[in-house]
């Protein structure tokens, strides 16, 4: 036994000495050659794709699931194609600044970048302007759900492909509802009743809002019948032909918003200048606000509402057909004159492949645009998911409608927040409808 230990010690010492010798020799061998060019040859410039995408103004050390999910697919593309995807970002400092969408439009129109992550209204606008590349030829288009293709097709061209189907819902503090013996609301009336009770019980602002997402209330009430009444195509056709008016659909929603503003259930002043989640998120997380509106992914994201200390339930918006999810899609588009268009196309092909979408969906636990990808969701999202699986939802944007919905409605809701009447808002909608019909 002792002899073995001794042998082992000798071996160890021998290895150490050998290691030291090698180290010493390599250290000595690095002397410069007098005639040699000392400039370290620069790396071959790698191919680059510029991606314009939003950036969240959040704590950089916190885990941002949404960004991580996209990053994972970007890394997949970088690895497979040997390219570098450079992120270009913009965030408005305040409401007076240009919005992300404004800058997206400007940059796309001036061919500043290759790949853009765009909101539905921008997709539609740029699609109509012919600034986005037709993506119908992508290898994985056939995997996409029909509703996804419909929502992103402009003038017969598939101009954007999303990585997730974004479902908007009401994020509720179930414990506060239970505290005041309130059921989660199904209809606008029930919703108003809940707000009344909260208000009476000292909750000053029952609804936390920002300048972007109040429009989801309008869509839920406006299109609950249109998308779930069984006569969708005819009704859209009627709207596109001018036979029917968008204002007729949207009036109840705006009236509803006007009422909650007037009754102080929403702090209009704060909402007008608040960015998404940033404005209302803190109060909701502190249990001061029982209701906020947000997208599906916020329930999974630590930086949003992924780690509440209370029981949270995400439900659809109140409508005549009960709780109504509002579905929207931010999609990736490629500039038609993109400097690195080909690489951007290949990158997008990988980023929206089933493999990448599976990674994305598993990371964010969201609804995937690919019909081949299915993942579980967090318990809080179950009510919303159940409704979507039942096929009950409205689209927040639809490229099949001639009038752009998502962006326009958002702007008009802001006017309502600024103090416009419901009628004034309806007039604006009528004007926009006419404008779109005249194109």
């Amino acid at each position: 036994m002792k002899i073995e230990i001794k042998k082992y010690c000798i071996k160890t010492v021998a290895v150490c000495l050998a290691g030291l010798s090698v180290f010493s020799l390599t250290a000595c061998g690095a002397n410069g050659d007098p005639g040699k060019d000392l400039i370290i040859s620069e790396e071959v410039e790698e191919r680059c794709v510029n991606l314009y995408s939003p950036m969240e103004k959040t704590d950089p050390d916190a885990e941002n699931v949404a960004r991580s999910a996209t990053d994972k697919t970007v890394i997949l593309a970088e690895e497979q194609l040997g390219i570098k995807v450079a992120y270009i970002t913009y965030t408005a400092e305040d409401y007076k600044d240009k919005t992300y969408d404004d800058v997206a439009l400007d940059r796309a129109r001036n061919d500043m970048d290759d790949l853009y992550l765009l909101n539905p209204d921008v997709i539609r606008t740029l699609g109509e302007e012919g600034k986005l590349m037709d993506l119908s030829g992508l290898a994985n288009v056939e995997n996409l759900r029909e509703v996804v293709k419909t929502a992103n097709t402009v003038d017969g061209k598939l101009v954007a492909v999303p990585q997730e189907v974004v479902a908007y819902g009401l994020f509720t503090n179930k414990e506060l509802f239970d505290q005041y013996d309130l059921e989660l609301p199904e209809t606008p009336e029930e919703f108003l009743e809940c707000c009344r009770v909260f208000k009476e019980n000292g909750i000053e602002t029952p609804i936390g809002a920002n300048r972007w997402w109040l429009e989801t209330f309008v869509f839920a009430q406006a299109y609950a019948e249109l998308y779930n009444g069984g006569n969708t195509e005819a009704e859209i056709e009627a709207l596109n032909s001018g036979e029917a008016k968008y204002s007729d659909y949207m009036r109840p929603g705006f009236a509803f918003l006007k009422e909650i503003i007037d009754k102080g259930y929403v702090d209009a002043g704060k909402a007008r200048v608040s960015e998404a989640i940033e404005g209302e998120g803190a109060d909701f997380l502190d249990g001061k606000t029982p209701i906020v509106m947000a997208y599906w992914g916020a329930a999974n994201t630590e930086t949003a509402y992924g780690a509440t200390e209370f029981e949270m339930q995400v439900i659809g918006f109140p409508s005549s057909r009960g709780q109504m999810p509002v579905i929207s899609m931010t999609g990736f588009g490629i500039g038609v004159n993109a400097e690195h268009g080909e690489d951007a196309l290949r990158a997008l092909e990988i980023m929206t492949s089933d493999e990448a979408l599976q990674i994305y969906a598993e990371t964010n636990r969201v609804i995937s645009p690919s019909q081949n990808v299915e993942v579980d969701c967090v318990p809080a999202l179950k009510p919303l998911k159940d409704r979507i699986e039942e096929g009950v939802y409205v689209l927040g944007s639809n490229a099949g409608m001639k009038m752009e919905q998502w962006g326009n409605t958002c702007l008009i809701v802001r006017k309502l927040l600024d103090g416009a009447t419901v009628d004034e808002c309806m007039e604006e909608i009528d004007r926009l409808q006419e404008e779109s019909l005249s194109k």
Partner: protein
Amino acid sequence: MKKKLNGNRKSKGSSLLLSIIIVFFVLGTIVLSVSHKISREMSSSAIQNLSESLDLIKCTIEAILNNEAEFQKLIAHEIALVEDPEEYIRSYEKNQSMVKMSLVLSGETKGVSNTGETFLAEELDFSLGDTVKGLEVSRAYMNYMGTWAYTMKCPVEKDGQEIGMLYVEYTYDFLDRSLPTGFYNKKAMLYIMDARSERFVLKPKGMGERSAGHLNLEDFYRANSIEDENIRENVNDCLKTGKNILFYHDIREKKSLNYMWAVNDGTIYLVGYVPIEAIQQEGKAVNQSIFIVVSAMLIAFLLCCLFYYLNQRQQNRLRKEREAEREIHNKQLAEALQAAQIASNSKTMFLSNMSHDIRTPMNAVLGFTTLLAMDAENPVKVREYTKKIMSSGQHLLSLINDILDVSKIESGKVVLNIEKFTLNSLVSSVDAIIRPMAKSKNQTFHVEVTGIQHEYLLGDETRINQILINLLSNAIKYTQEGGNIWFRILGLKQHSLQFEHIGIEVEDDGYGMMPEYLETIFDAFTRAENSTTNKVQGTGLGMAITKNIVELMGGTIEVSSEVDKGSLFRVELELRIPEGQADKQFWEKNGIRRILAVDADEEGSKTIQALMKETGVFVDTASRVEEAVDLLRHGGDYHLALLDWDIPDMDGRQAASELRMAMPDSMPLFLLADCDAQGPEEMAETGRTGILTKPFFVSAFKEKILEMQMEQRGEHIIKAIGSEDLEGLRFLAAEDNDINAEILAEILKMEGADCEIVENGRLAVERFETSEKGEFDAILMDVQMPVMNGHDATRAIRALKRQDAREIPIIAMTANAFAEDEKAALDAGMDAHVAKPIDIEYLKQVIKQCTGGKQ
């Protein structure tokens, strides 16, 4: 002493350890201070390097701005020269630097732009008064391309009059091309900040776009947790005064050097941070190298210590082993010394005992010899004295024999002489010796043999005899007068069919022994001593000899004893059974097929049956005489009957008479009786009745039958013992010792024989050679003699070319009394061996055998 040594070793080890620690501490301090010094110098150098790099970037950006301003002035000058300045503007195509060009003619509020839209100067903020080469610079803004931009305005003068204002928009993106790629190996962060709005207007590609914190200065503070008010105030002061600032602050838990570097008199700033590890990369590399070198030295040192330690440990171990070995040797030596002392003591004691034991009979011999000399005329006294001298001489001889025996057994020279023998002869010879001894002390000697399956066995009869004699003579010796001695031979359960397992018990009701003596009874030179036994003479070697012989035979010996109650010695031996021992032919030849044994003792009957089993003779047993009579009268076709003389409730004579009446006259009757039984002899005279001494043995039985047959045939057994003297015989004796020669001559003379003495073997040979044929009847040859010993002389005689040289009996007469001596004598050609001192009766017997009773 040992403790002191250990203490010294420990204190030595402690001081060595302390020295090592001190050396390491000093070495560590030196290395640490050197490392810190290098770090400081490297850090200072890196700060210098960073400052220079930032200055370079600053100069580059300023140069671009200046160029842009100069170029704008040239364009303004050119516009002043063209006929239609607005058309000039519209026709301008943007490039990467100047992305928009606008002109507002004097006196107008709106102007034209190359992008085609109406230009409103009021949309731009020139209120801050920043300038480049005298041209005013607007605040940074997000331009129509969705990127951060600034505009410089330049008056268009013609003939000394201002005809309009030229606005040219530049993007900050353009500056990106002039910035270094991979600033500090891509570990540093570099932004360009508009000083007035504190917005970050350029975030170079590949430099942290994926991280938050690059919206504006406040966002930068928040994202990087720069909350120190002093730092913020210092930064604000610098921003106001257009100075540079460098400060340390942790960025994402890494110590970093943060910078705000003013460009163009502080209108824009280079903002960012460099992790210290990136700045001190060289320092770190140097420190790592130092660390490796120190580690290597440390490891080498530790290895040396380890080897030293192992070596020391091994040496300690060896030393301890040697010490242990020495201790063992010392112990062994001490033990050997002790053993030697004990042996010496034992021998001293032995010698003392022997001296006493030898002197006692010797004293008797010499004393009685003196008395003999004085009373030579008194025949009664002479006979008495010679008897006592003889007794003392015999005791002396047994003493010498025992000593020699012990010495021989202990040196392992004893060889067992395995031969076939019968238990009958063994018991008979023992009985013949012991019974008279017992009788002399009025002791009763009982002999019992039970359960024996085989009578003929293989073994050294002489040695077994020796065992029995030792045990029995001891029993007699240590039993008071009138006591009892029991000698039993028991057949025990056989372990193997080839071996007879016998137990020998010698019991007495004598003095018994103390328990402490029992422990040493089998040791040599020990003897039970008390006031009673001290009267008893003995060598103290008998038991040691007995035990050694028993063990030599593979047997065991045990003893149990109680003082004043007696002792019991039990010997167990396994003796091989010889093949074909049963003499069936004798019984068949004499027509003896069935006998009747009358014995009240069931064990006795069984022993008879067992011993007779192999003879093929069927044995019927009867425990009572009536039963035997009945068997004899009704159907018993017996050829002879055997009757135990000691049959209970009936006198032996009566029993024998009754049996005899029931038996046919021709049928022999044998009476089985103790040797001292009264009455059997009378019955024997009645005819066809024989006496068989107990215990029963087949061989003895057979002999008696033969005797009876011979008597019937009228033959008389000639007594072997004829004339006791050696009348008329003439011997040649070779004896070098004069006294022995004289004794021999006198003894032979007393026996009527003539003897011629020669002094050595050579003379014996010569004398025989010259003798006439038949002159000598035998030659008595001593063995150890000068000139030629007895063996050589015998060989020489046998080699003589005389006819009688081979025939003349040569009898060895020597003090070499062992079996091998006898064998050597026989091998040399002698005919017999007689040990000295000479037993005249034995000598006569041997001479007769050799000479064939010639006289």
